[in-house]
Every structure is written in structure tokens, then in C-alpha cells.
């Protein structure tokens, strides 16, 4: 174990925890709001370990959406992890299969972003232990905060509208995801279709909106010539 690299990872991720802690608390509170208990909060956080999809799944379960819609929605949200997996894979190529399995489990937006930035810089660092310093810290903080949220959740009055914090978290992640005109169109179209389709049966509005929004983005990119790759 390269403790210096691990510690550098922990230090680099520290400022991001300011965003993770309230997000985790909200995810825990959302579990209670959906009528589910601590075991579900722990299960989602440990087994799924992906905040946005946890929140979406809880919201749909709370509305008694069909289980296939709950699963499809959560998985669509997590499809971005395919991108991170592809992008970081060359840096993990020389590790054993067992290490790859462990490193993949703790892959998140933040662990991906910080690690790839560090690998691309000139700074000499142990790839595995730097990544683990970032990713394991996020994992531990996420588990603690979702459990704390689930324990606190029952004590919060309805009038506080805490469930409103969920779309706010999504909003904060959405803005940096709009990188250019084509992603902007995907967001505008996806959001609009979701508003119009809110009344669709089986809570299908979100999936339809995501599909139409993605299509609009791809078509816009083709029409404008695109940026070819990155």
C-alpha cells in the first residue's frame, strides 16, 4: 500500500464532501419519506451506491410505480458509469482481475473526475492507491450520511418540504452536464417532455423524456457537424 498516494486522494476529495454530506442525508431522509426503513437505506447505499439513482428509485417506489419502471429508471441514470468505466479503463489495464472488480465497485462521478485529472497531470502518483483514497472516502461518507438521514428522517415535519432537496441536488449536477449546444438541447427537450408527460401512465414520463432528449441531442450534434468524439 502506498500511503502517501492514498492520503493525497483523501485530501483531494475533502472539499467535495461539502456537497456529498447533504446529498447523503437527503437520500437517507427520502428512504423514510417513501415509507421504507433503515434496512432499505443501507441496502441501497451499499448495494447500489449511486446517489441520483437511489433517489429516483425511492421517489418512484413511494409513488408505487411498477417495479420494472423503477429498475429501468435507476439503470438509465447510471448508464453514465459506462462512460467513466471506458474512460478510466486504460489506466487500470495492468491491475489484476480482483483489483479491477474492487475498483469498479467504488467508481463514482467524483472518483472518476479526480483520478483521471490526476493521472493526466505530470504529478507522479500511485494510480491504485490515489484512486482508493478518493473513492473509499466517498464510499464511507456516503454510507454514514445516508444512515444518519434515515435515522433523522422521521423527525422532520412535512411542511419543511425536505423532498424538494432532491431535485435541487439533481439540478446542481445537471448544470455542469450541459457542456455545449447539443447537450443543452438534450436537457431542454428532456425536461420539457417530462413536464408534458408527467401524467403518463406507469410513471413512464421520465423514461420517454430521457429517450426523446437523448435523441434530440444526437440529432443536433449530427446537424451541426458535431465535435467528433470528445
Amino acid at each position, binding site marked *: 500500500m502506498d500511503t502517501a498516494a492514498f492520503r493525497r486522494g483523501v485530501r483531494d476529495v475533502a472539499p467535495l464532501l461539502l456537497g456529498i454530506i447533504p446529498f447523503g442525508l437527503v437520500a437517507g431522509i427520502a428512504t423514510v419519506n417513501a415509507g421504507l426503513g433503515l434496512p432499505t437505506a443501507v441496502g441501497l447505499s451499499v448495494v447500489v451506491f449511486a446517489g441520483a439513482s437511489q433517489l429516483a428509485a425511492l421517489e418512484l417506489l413511494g409513488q408505487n410505480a411498477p417495479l420494472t419502471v423503477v429498475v429501468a429508471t435507476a439503470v438509465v441514470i447510471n448508464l453514465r458509469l459506462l462512460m467513466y468505466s*471506458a474512460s478510466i479503463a486504460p489506466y487500470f489495464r495492468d491491475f489484476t482481475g480482483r483489483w479491477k472488480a474492487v475498483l469498479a465497485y467504488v467508481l463514482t462521478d467524483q472518483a472518476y473526475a479526480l483520478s483521471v485529472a490526476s493521472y493526466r497531470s505530470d504529478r507522479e502518483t500511485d494510480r491504485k492507491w490515489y484512486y482508493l483514497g478518493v473513492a473509499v472516502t466517498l464510499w464511507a461518507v456516503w454510507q454514514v450520511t445516508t444512515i444518519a438521514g434515515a435515522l433523522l428522517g422521521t423527525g422532520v415535519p412535512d411542511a419543511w418540504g425536505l423532498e424538494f432537496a432532491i431535485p435541487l441536488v439533481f439540478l446542481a449536477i445537471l448544470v455542469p*452536464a450541459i457542456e455545449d449546444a447539443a447537450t443543452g438541447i438534450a436537457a431542454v427537450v428532456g425536461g420539457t417532455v*417530462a413536464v408534458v408527460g408527467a401524467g403518463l401512465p406507469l410513471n413512464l414520463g421520465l423514461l420517454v423524456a430521457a429517450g426523446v432528449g437523448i435523441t434530440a441531442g444526437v440529432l443536433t450534434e449530427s446537424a451541426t457537424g458535431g465535435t467528433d468524439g470528445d
Partner: protein
Amino acid sequence: MATNYGPVEIAGVVAVIGVLTYACRLSFIALFGRLDEIPPVVERVLRFVPAAVLAALVLPSFVTLDAGSFAADKFVAGALAAGVAWRTEDVFATMVTGMGVLWAIRFLL
């Protein structure tokens, strides 16, 4: 809003989402060596997933076409939080603004 699903169904949903999410994470990390590049078509489509999905999750919470359930406090709080998100790209600042405005409207006005 509380679920009618039982513990077995919930556990099943958690397990299936967990397995499929892990499959997304592991996919290319496990494949590399065998497959050297992400197919360009897949990459082009995936690029739009976060923007489209997140917008579809966010907007209906702030706006609704159904006049009966339109909530002005959420609309105003959402709009101001969007402005802060745009300026700061900061999760914490966005949450503080959105919740703060919502509470100000509900409890102070």
C-alpha cells in the same frame, strides 16, 4: 407518499438495480485488453444521458402543466436555485438557495 410494496419486492429491486449498476461500472474496466476502444456510436449516445435524464428529473418538480397542483413557492425556489447552480456549479450552494427560498416563502411571507 408511501410505498405499498413489501420487503421482498423492495429487496429484489435493490438487488437488480445493484447488479446492473455494478455491470455498468465494471463493463469497460473488465473488457479492456480484450476491447481497446468504446464504440463511437455508444459514446455519442452516452454523452447525452446525464443532461437529458437529469433535466427530466428536475423540471417536473418545479413546473407542472396542471394548474390545480401548480406550486408557486417551488417554482420560484427552483428558478433561483437554477441561477445559483449556473453561477457556482456548487451542490451545497444550490441546495441552500433552493431550500432557503422555499422556507422563506412558506414561513415568512
